[in-house]
């Protein structure tokens, strides 16, 4: 059977943006709307790399770059030409209910100490003993550590580990004094604690927002767009003195911003109707430019120059190289 509609899978973070592009595309052209599924970055890669042909997806969204092993998986299934399209940034943010009585400003080191499975305790690398924020630093509130965060299946989790946990780990005196290198950090600082304070809350960010609203002492980790929509009830937690906002995320001042991508299966361009037109819509200025409709949904646009380059590269369908 042929297929008339474009199929997009992938990251739940990119999902709202793909949705927006898909709806805009179909409104503008009257063409059948692309079908967008939210499968998580990893899951999307598995489906995307399943092979070429109408049974397989055309695009996949990703909240992190494609990895080497995924690229190889694609290649082994005959998906050899892939175009990487960088579309913008997502501000991963820590947030808490406005009902919280405390003013929150954490360092990444404190975040690490609160959430990691293993931390230095009296100079020894040991299981995380901290149960209250005040245990970590007396200046922090004397309340239980409760952080709701993404499950390991999600790219959000990967990004958080990389951007917050690893960096926080490296800031530890223990690590700096010990002279441990990046590999050591990756080896030892990637595990989130499983003894209660860190709660893997599933992929549903709205659910986390609502749980924050009902529990003023719980922190949540999720996309900035959800903070933005609910500014009246929740607030971003400042990291190293920087509160999350569109500006601080775009400038990478807020510690945990990450790039968003989608990947194009080049072999499908020219076969699946309207695929190229949809890609053009997705990366148009109206979409990902400043003030474009993606920013309404919470995406942080790329700086002008980067954006122009990314758009050009995407339109040229330049196949990506094997990631390092």
């Amino acid at each position, binding site marked *: 059977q042929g297929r008339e509609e474009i199929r997009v899978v992938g990251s739940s973070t990119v999902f709202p943006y793909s949705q927006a592009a898909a709806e805009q595309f179909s409104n503008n052209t009257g063409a059948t709307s692309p079908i967008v599924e939210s499968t998580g970055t990893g899951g999307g890669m*598995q489906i995307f790399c399943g092979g070429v042909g*109408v049974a397989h997806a055309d695009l996949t969204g990703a909240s992190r770059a494609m990895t080497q092993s995924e690229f190889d998986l694609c290649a082994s299934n005959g*998906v050899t030409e892939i175009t990487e399209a960088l579309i913008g940034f997502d501000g991963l943010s820590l947030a808490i209910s406005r009902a919280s009585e405390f003013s929150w400003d954490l360092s990444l080191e404190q975040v690490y100490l609160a959430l990691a499975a293993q931390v230095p305790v009296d100079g020894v690398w040991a299981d995380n003993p901290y149960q209250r924020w005040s245990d970590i630093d007396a200046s922090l509130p004397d309340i239980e550590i409760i952080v709701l965060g993404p499950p390991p299946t999600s790219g959000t989790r990967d990004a958080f580990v990389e951007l917050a946990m690893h960096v926080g780990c490296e800031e530890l005196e223990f690590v700096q004094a010990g002279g441990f290198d990046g590999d050591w950090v990756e080896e030892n600082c990637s595990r989130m604690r499983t003894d209660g304070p860190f709660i893997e809350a599933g992929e549903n960010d709205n*659910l986390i927002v609502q749980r924050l609203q009902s529990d003023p002492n719980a922190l949540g980790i999720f996309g900035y767009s959800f903070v933005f929509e609910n500014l009246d009830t929740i607030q971003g937690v400042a990291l190293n003195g920087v509160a999350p906002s569109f500006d601080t995320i775009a400038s990478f001042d807020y510690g945990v911003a990450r790039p968003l991508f989608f990947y194009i299966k080049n072999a499908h361009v020219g076969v699946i109707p309207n695929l190229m037109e949809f890609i053009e819509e997705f990366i148009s200025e109206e979409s990902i430019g400043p003030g474009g409709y993606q920013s309404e949904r919470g995406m942080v646009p790329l700086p002008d120059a980067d954006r122009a380059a990314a758009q050009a590269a995407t339109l040229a369908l330049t196949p990506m190289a094997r990631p390092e």
Partner: protein
Amino acid sequence: MTLLAFMILAALAVSGFLLNRSAALAIQAGGTRTHSLAYFHGLYALLSVLVPVFVVICVYLVLKTPVINGMVIGGLPDGVLDDMSAGQVDLVLATIQSITRGQTFGTPPDWQLAAAERLTSLYAGADLLMVVVVAALSAVILFFVRRQVAAEFRARQAAERIVHGLMVACSLVAILTTVGIVFALVYEAYRFFEMVPVMDFLFGTRWEPQIPIRADQVAAVGAFGWLPVILGTVVIGTVAMLIATPIGLLTAIYLNEFAPKSVRAVVKPVLEILSGVPTVVYGFFAILVVAPALRGTGADLGIAVSSNTALAAGGVMGIMLIPFISSFADDALTAVPRSLRDGSLALGATRGETMLKVLFPAAIPGIVGGILLAVSRAIGETMIVVMAAGLIARMTINPLDSVTTVTVQIVTLLIGDTAFDNPKTLAAFALGLMLFILTLGINILALRIVRKYREIYD
């Protein structure tokens, strides 16, 4: 075209019915008694045509596309498919199909246009052929069936044999579903146990399946001991049953013995709504209403309550199970013969004494059967716990803590990631298998008990 084929089939089958029936009637008019009613002669003709030809049409519908695609691909000029992978060939086919729909990109090469034409003509030809085959086959069957009409022909038996066959086929579907599930579970679980020793799985006390999904991902090291997971299931299930059983039983007792008819007529259906509410809704309810309330109460009392407390998930699940238990208990109580109730009342027992000392004990086997079925529901329930229970497995029986369940793990391990080759994903199947075995055991037990109790009163 397919519709036409079905219409032809229907028309010929009906005419076969009429034809054979009138033939049988003619024999009867001649004064001979036919073995079977004329109606059965007709029915036999109808079924003889309908069943095989229907199967033929279905097979055609399934095979049409792959066969024609194969023919088109096979008919392409030499060389154009050289060095192409299956997927690329698939894309070529998709391009050709797009052309038949009038969608082209640039100027397609001539061989593609030719193939598109061939594709169109093959489809048209195949449909025509199918209609002809259907008509011809039906006619041939009709012809032979018509010749069978005779006074001594056992048309009833013949028709009943066909119906019997159809019913057996239906049963096979149900059985095949089970076989399919068992096969899928066992096969994947076997692969899992090739990677993780059975003993580690069965007796391990650590469940940390978050081993790297990709070679270069860093995460927790894998540990696949299912005990904490099943323990979590047991904790949540126990909470659920502790809520559902007393409330359900008391409800049944009240409705069965004390409630005025009008109350019963209202309460029963309203309660049934509780079991009809989609479980995803209960999930929202548990996590957004019940859990915070419990946490708040706990905080007021100075007790630490996890925000994923098993109490919330289990409690809400218990609510869901109330009507299940109450209607089972109500049925069991109703099944106790009225004579026992009269017997007790006539001895001067109050209604409460009659209920508690005679009716309820007499209904116990049925009630226990129902409770067991509710238990198997509870451990198989998915969406409530996916939303309201935790993800992290811990060896605890404290219902105020967060625990995880077998179904939660299955869902989280599977949704999102469908690489069927690492133990993380395969572990879901091992868990599924254990769940299947567990519910099977409970069901066998429940059936035994219910059976035994039926024997007493039948």
